[in-house]
């Protein structure tokens, strides 16, 4: 048994902080309503900010009472986590960086600490120190909880953008009557090459294209899987009646493909997109004639 200094109602500093928070809930919520974090998020009415503040104080009190001031996963926080996430997201949308938001959360600490110290007046210095320490740790944990919601929101954003990239990065460009091109950029994984193939085949139908150019200048690595995707796309385009040309194979990639042992013999290739366009135009019977300045008007 740890020795009990005083009789009966002796509480740990954390529990005492919990009691204090519960007792002074209203007062703290009123003070927080004027703090930057609450004031800027709840702009409609002050009462709204106070209400949100009460919920947070209540949660902190529960965490303190359970003596889990250091734990972000404490049950008490789960009640307000969603609300905190909304507040943090709102600040984030308004242009605050994560560290600015963190500072705003930290600004909630001093009003509470001041109240606590005022309340503990006359108590032994040791009690005051223990209680303020417990409160400070608790407020630090709150700060971490808020930051964590910000980071997980960031992760969600990244996942969403990853999906968006699938769509954005594969525009099919009409270069000439009957000639379409797809400039491929970045990593060609299975998901993306599927999107590429679908949009290309669709545009072959839409544009009545007889030639489709796949430009891989922006693809950093061509391994056997990427080569396989290219060959499949070429084969599918051929079934649609279009001739597919792969362009933009850089020297380093050409050498690598040879060493890798991939046979791209079935695929028509050209060094650059311009060469591929020239090839397709010639095959269509179009002749590119440099403009003669003396007979400019005759054409």
């Amino acid at each position, binding site marked *: 048994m740890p020795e009990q200094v005083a009789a009966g109602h002796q509480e740990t500093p954390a529990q005492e902080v919990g009691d204090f928070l519960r007792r002074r809930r209203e007062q703290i919520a009123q003070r927080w309503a004027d703090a930057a974090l609450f004031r800027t998020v709840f702009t409609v009415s002050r009462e709204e900010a106070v209400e949100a503040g009460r919920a947070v104080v209540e949660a902190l009190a529960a965490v303190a009472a359970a003596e889990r001031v250091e734990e972000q996963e404490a049950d008490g926080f789960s009640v307000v986590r969603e609300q905190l996430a909304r507040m943090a997201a709102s600040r984030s949308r308004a242009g605050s960086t994560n560290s600015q938001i963190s500072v705003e959360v930290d600004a909630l600490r001093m009003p509470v600490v001041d109240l606590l110290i005022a309340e503990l007046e006359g108590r032994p210095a040791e009690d005051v120190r223990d209680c303020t320490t417990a409160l400070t740790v608790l407020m630090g944990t709150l700060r971490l909880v808020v930051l964590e919601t910000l980071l997980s929101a960031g992760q969600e954003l990244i996942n969403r953008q990853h999906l968006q990239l699938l769509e954005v990065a594969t525009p099919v460009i009409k270069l000439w009557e009957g000639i379409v091109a797809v400039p491929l950029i970045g990593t060609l994984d299975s998901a993306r090459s599927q999107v590429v193939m679908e949009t290309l085949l669709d545009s072959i139908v839409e544009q009545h294209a007889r030639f489709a150019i796949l430009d891989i200048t922006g693809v950093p*690595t061509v*391994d056997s899987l990427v080569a396989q995707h290219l060959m499949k796309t070429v084969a599918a385009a051929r079934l649609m009646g279009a001739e597919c040309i792969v362009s933009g194979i850089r020297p*380093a990639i050409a050498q690598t493909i040879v060493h890798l042992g991939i046979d791209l013999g079935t695929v028509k290739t050209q060094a650059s997109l311009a060469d591929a366009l020239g090839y397709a135009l010639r095959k269509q019977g179009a002749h590119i004639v440099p403009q003669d300045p003396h007979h400019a008007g005759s054409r």
Partner: protein
Amino acid sequence: MQTAGGVSACLPIHSDLDLVWVRQHVRQAAAQLGFGLVAQTKLVTAASELARNTLVHGGGGQMECAPVSRGGGQGLRLSFSDEGPGIPDLDQALRDGYTSGEGLGMGLGGARRLVHEFHVDSRQGRGTTVTVTSWVSGPPRPREEQ
């Protein structure tokens, strides 16, 4: 700027996104050690093949990347390990065109041609470790010494 410590790393291979990290790390590490563009591309492509094998056939694993030096020459050693079913017939697996899945069957054999040293350690049911090394050795044509 990265220091030599930036070359050594142990990267997990558990998803397609991890393959992107593997490629980028190997490219950066090779560039830092002074590999030429062609040598970099070869090594990155080999890493891509082997990492995909680790993911697809080994059910995920990791890549260890470390700089090595021998006789004044500098090189990069990549070690891909998984705890998958292992390779039952290594000679068959190395043969071009042989595939256990739907790929082209060029992965393992192709990767061997892209690096200077290639070693497979596979035990049935105990996983596979493929270790490859390429040397900078007077860029830009490191393959000449073989």
